[in-house]
């Protein structure tokens, strides 16, 4: 199933990041030792990211987006599969190489206040990654902290260096988080719902900032969101996740204009129709519970909620990755 998706993705430069058959399962135990099953947060994910592109992962809450991001960052050990960054599989790296990898990948979290140690000032917060990565010279660290603050438009940096996180607004805090993610000069940024906890008024600003930094530095940006409405402006490609898997992926406009997977179609109706007349239709589609990741439905994960389910097929076997339109991949039996 992965083959077709990879073909779609083939590019001249080759991928920065390749994810192959990635599984991250969390074992559930009772009384500390009895295994009662696994939460299959990431359950067979494949994709490639080209250098310098921005992609968005969308999907409803609990579909495993954050787990995927954390697995890419090495915060969770994959149960199976591999993450290949710049040609090397993470599983084969030794401690020093792993640390070097972490410097190549920046992480922007959802809750900016929680993401900053409340007892450190901005200077210290920005120095920390540098200290960890052996930048001994204090003046150099200061210089880089200033640069990073300029980069995220917190200027003049002097005004912010000695502030503590609680003295900053949510937007400023998130800028500091972004500055911290940039300070080690990464090749890739993973942003997990970077604006969902911010005031609506600053969301676009922060997304624009991320986007412009990404373009200026030719970074690869993977950002997670469940807000399909803004994706168009900030990403080139979209991955739609459902129950631990990627069910559809394409260029932004292609995907938004021609959604193929019934789940994506449902998502798009749900967001793009403020018209109350369509409310019934809207409710109809993603109605029903998101599937249990502990005992995912057999066959297509979406089949209990799918209105186009093909009995005997969809509930029996997981659909392969298909390419109904050029460069547009989806995992749905409809396109066989």
């Amino acid at each position: 199933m992965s083959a077709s998706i990879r073909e779609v993705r083939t590019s001249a430069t080759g991928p920065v990041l390749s994810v192959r058959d990635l599984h991250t399962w969390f074992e559930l135990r009772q009384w500390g030792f009895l295994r009662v099953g696994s939460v299959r947060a990431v359950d067979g994910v494949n994709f490639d990211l080209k250098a310098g592109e921005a992609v968005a992962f969308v999907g409803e809450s609990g579909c495993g987006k954050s787990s995927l991001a954390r697995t890419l960052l090495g915060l969770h050990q994959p149960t199976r599969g591999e993450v290949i960054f710049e040609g090397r599989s993470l599983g084969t790296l030794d401690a020093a190489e792993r640390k070097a990898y972490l410097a190549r990948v920046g992480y922007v979290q959802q809750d900016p206040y929680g993401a900053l140690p409340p007892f450190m000032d901005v200077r210290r917060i920005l120095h920390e990654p540098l200290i960890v990565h052996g930048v001994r010279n204090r003046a150099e660290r200061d210089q880089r902290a200033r640069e990073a603050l300029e980069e995220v438009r917190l200027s003049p940096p002097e005004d912010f260096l000695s502030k503590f996180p609680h003295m900053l607004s949510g937007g400023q805090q998130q800028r500091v988080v972004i500055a911290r993610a940039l300070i080690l000069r990464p090749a890739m940024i993973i942003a997990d719902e970077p604006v969902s906890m911010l005031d609506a008024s600053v969301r676009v600003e922060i997304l624009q900032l991320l986007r412009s930094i990404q373009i200026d530095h030719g970074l690869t940006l993977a950002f997670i969101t469940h807000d399909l409405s803004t994706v168009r402006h900030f990403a080139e490609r979209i991955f739609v996740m459902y129950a631990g898997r990627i069910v559809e992926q394409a260029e932004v406009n292609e995907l938004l204009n021609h959604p193929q997977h019934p789940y994506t179609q449902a998502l798009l109706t749900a967001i793009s129709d403020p018209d109350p007349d369509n409310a019934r239709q809207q409710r109809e589609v993603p109605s029903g519970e998101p599937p249990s990741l502990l005992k995912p439905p057999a066959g297509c994960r979406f089949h209990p909620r799918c209105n186009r389910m093909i009995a005997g097929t969809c509930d029996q076997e997981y659909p392969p990755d298909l390419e109904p339109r050029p460069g547009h991949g989806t995992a749905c039996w409809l396109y066989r």
Partner: protein
Amino acid sequence: MRQLLDGLRRLGQYPSALVGLAIIFALVGTAVFTVVTIPYGQALELWRGGDPWRMHPVNARPVWVDRIAGNNSPRTMVVSSRDALIEEEPFVGGSRMRIPLEFDFGYAGFPSELNLFLTSTHVEREPFVRLTWETPDGREFILGGRRLAREERVSISQDWELERRLGRVPHVGLFAEPADDRPPQVLEGRYRLTLDVISFEEDARVDADLVVYGRVHGLAGTDHQRRDLMVALLWGIPVALAFGLLAAVGTTVTTLVIAAAGVWYGGWIDAVIQRLTEVNIILPMLPILVMVGTLYSTSIWVMLGVVIALGIFSAGIKMYRAMLLPIRESPYIEAAKAYGAGNARIILRYMIPRILPVLIPTFVILIPSFVFLEASLALLGLGDPVLPTWGKVMNDAQTQSALYHGFYYWVLSPAALLMLTGLGFAMLGFALDRVFNPRLRTM
């Protein structure tokens, strides 16, 4: 840091914190003063007792006790031959000297003891001295004659023959009105002890110090070994503060680090720490300390070590664990992992600092509890063998039945200092608790 500074600023609003701080500063100031003026070695030397204290009275009350009681008890007087008008008559092969030791006695009470310390610089032949006591009303008592060694102590108070002659102990009889009434009345006026010395070497010199021991001494009084209690009361401050602080720091730091490591690594490490803590919590501290003190050593350093060792897996671990568990999951820790911070860095720089402000009040309140522990050990006779401490003063007082004999000062002054220490830290600690644990603030 931020929380800390904010908190300290807010502390000013609590008068109890200021009083507590004032007490602590006063104690620390006195401790520094003590250590500078009475260096460690000298303090140990003094507290060993003996010769340095021979001119101090036994069990003298503090002067202020006497003042409060409205008495005019005698102070100690030292009458030295160096200030006396000595008449000297040399003769071939020796000399004859008359040394009058004169003093005015105007107290409303008898001295507690009377001793004469003599030194002689003769080489071979011992000089001879004859002592005559003259009272203000002109009566004379021959206190006998004797040959002098190079250092001689004449315990006039213990002259049984004289006591029999006077019908009273000498330091009372020699100062009493002639009338044979009881109780005896002090005869005020100028007394004179004349030493008639015959020296058999030409340049042998005799010096004398007559010590009329008082019944009050200094601000702290003296103990049964004539030691000035001030030495122990003062030296008790640095010892108590150092012990309390080191024990509190030692237990808090180790406990914190271990709790944080358990929370961070989880799994069997955490399980082992939890079980050890549970076992340690039910082990009683004091009996173990008593055992160590009895069987091994009562050195304050050994005790400190044992206290810290027993304190590592203390109940604090459970508390810290509960505070640290949610912090382990906080996004900023995840961020630190994501930029490659190691385990030690995360534990020491990211987890522990987060809860430090909350621990400050506990820490401050912990200090006096260790001070009390040390005093309790000393009171049980397990105090450091050489250090002067409050606990040891109380232990001495107890073994000498101080309260039974009415030497209240002996017990009360160290106890008051202990309470003052506890009070200072407690007042500061509770105010800090209000500041750093805002839930309490509204109460």
